[in-house]
């Protein structure tokens, strides 16, 4: 008896929920129109994830995602309102209509895809093997006889352990700083890490620059927006495509990641 009433309660709740969710798009005005009429584009950006988004010494948000937000607002001819969020609340901010777009180093996965929509990718985000330009590496088999530094327990460590040849030596450091130091002091020939970490190294203008050699796992960043916003989606994609072809996105990549925009993005 008790079980049954619980079940019917859950059913009622679910029905009500799906009804209210179905009702949302009609109730909400067209996203692009709202932005254009209010004259501001509200964008959720990361506050603690350099080089994508962090607070600069002047306390103003700065980074790849902030520049991207400003670029989109500029092309729309509206003012950008930067809303710093954490990675945990960036999607709720969008769902509760506190922001129009999420530009927050957001990767695509099925769980997120079910609740929000993604634009075309606008930023590279990947794990790969990095080494100075004079070292020839184009795939896992070229690691033969080389010493590669990784951060212990990271995705790169687990993946490379599987694909590296027998005579490649993996040196596993405690954290990213250990891996970076080992690379800079020449203790390892190459490092396997995220492009963000490589960018952090390049930013310091080291004598040895970690150049991308090959990809381990690719998960580029997308602009997130609410579902059923075809006009906004089309406009954002158009701006991204334009920024890719006119070189302005490449300039942002060079500025914050220290590398040109990958051609396949």
């Amino acid at each position, binding site marked *: 008896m008790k079980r049954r009433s619980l079940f019917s309660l859950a059913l009622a709740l679910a029905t009500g929920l799906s009804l209210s969710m179905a009702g949302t798009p009609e109730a909400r005005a067209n996203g692009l129109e709202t932005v254009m009429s209010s004259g501001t584009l509200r964008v959720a950006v990361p506050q603690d994830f350099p080089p994508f988004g962090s607070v600069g010494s002047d306390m103003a948000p700065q980074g790849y995602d902030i520049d991207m937000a400003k670029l989109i607002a500029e092309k729309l001819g509206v003012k950008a309102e930067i809303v710093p969020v954490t990675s945990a609340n960036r999607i709720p901010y969008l769902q509760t209509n506190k922001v129009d777009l999420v530009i927050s180093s957001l990767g695509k996965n099925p769980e997120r895809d079910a609740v929000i929509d993604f634009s075309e990718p606008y930023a590279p985000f990947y794990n790969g093997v990095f080494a100075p330009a004079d070292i020839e590496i184009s795939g896992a088999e070229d690691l033969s006889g080389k010493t590669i*530094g990784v951060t*212990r*327990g990271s995705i790169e*460590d*687990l993946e490379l352990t599987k694909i590296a040849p027998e005579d490649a030596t993996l*040196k*596993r*450091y*405690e954290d990213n700083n*250990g891996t970076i*130091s*080992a690379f800079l*002091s*020449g*203790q390892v020939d190459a490092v396997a890490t995220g492009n963000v970490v490589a960018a952090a190294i390049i930013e310091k203008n080291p004598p040895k620059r970690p150049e991308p050699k090959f990809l381990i796992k690719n998960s580029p960043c997308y602009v997130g927006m609410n579902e059923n916003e075809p006009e906004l989606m089309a406009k954002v994609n158009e701006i991204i495509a334009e920024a890719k072809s006119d070189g302005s996105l490449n300039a942002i990549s060079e500025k914050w990641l220290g590398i040109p925009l990958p051609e396949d993005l």
Partner: protein
Amino acid sequence: MNYVFDFGWLAQYYPVFLKGIAITIELTLVGGVIGIGFGIFCAWVRALGPTWMRPPVAVYVELIRNTPFMVQLFFIFFGLPALGFRMGELQAANLAMIINLGAYSCEIVRAGIEATPKGQFEAGAALALKPLQVFRHIIIRPALQRIWPALSSQVVIVMLGSAVVSQIAAEDVTFAANFIQSRTFRAFESYFVSTAIYLALSILLRKGLDYLGFFLFPATRVESH
């Protein structure tokens, strides 16, 4: 508490621990033998050596005894390559342990030398032995005997301190525990096993040093029997 203990991963990962044990033992043996040898030399310099050699040795001892081992290790591994001295993680770990134990054992051995009754030096001189011969044949063995327990403890401390070499990717017992923990997420079990390994190694090392002392210092046998 409803954590379910699971040591099933041991079947797959025990070679990592075996390798870790081998490396910890290697580091301790090399560091211990060369480190104590170097420490005895430094102790001789500070207690009896030529005056001009004493200040640099004093600086070395104070420098090492007043800085953290981990910083010394990082300096050798990450810092020295900037000056052109690059070595692998095992060489760096060995060197750091030798330098570290050298400084500590210097002070321990020096205490043993300085506790030698003056009459023994005079007796050596009366036999027309040169100062080095006095040191070698008369002074050093009873001096070591006096401080052997302290020196043994220092070697054990250095062996346990070698856990930090995992920070420079030397694959010792601690590295093995961290490595396994980051793959199996069995933190309690992997650190439990590594704790047991260190405990066993410490007990063995202490017994071994006691045994060595028994051989090196026949005089102790008279006392203990």
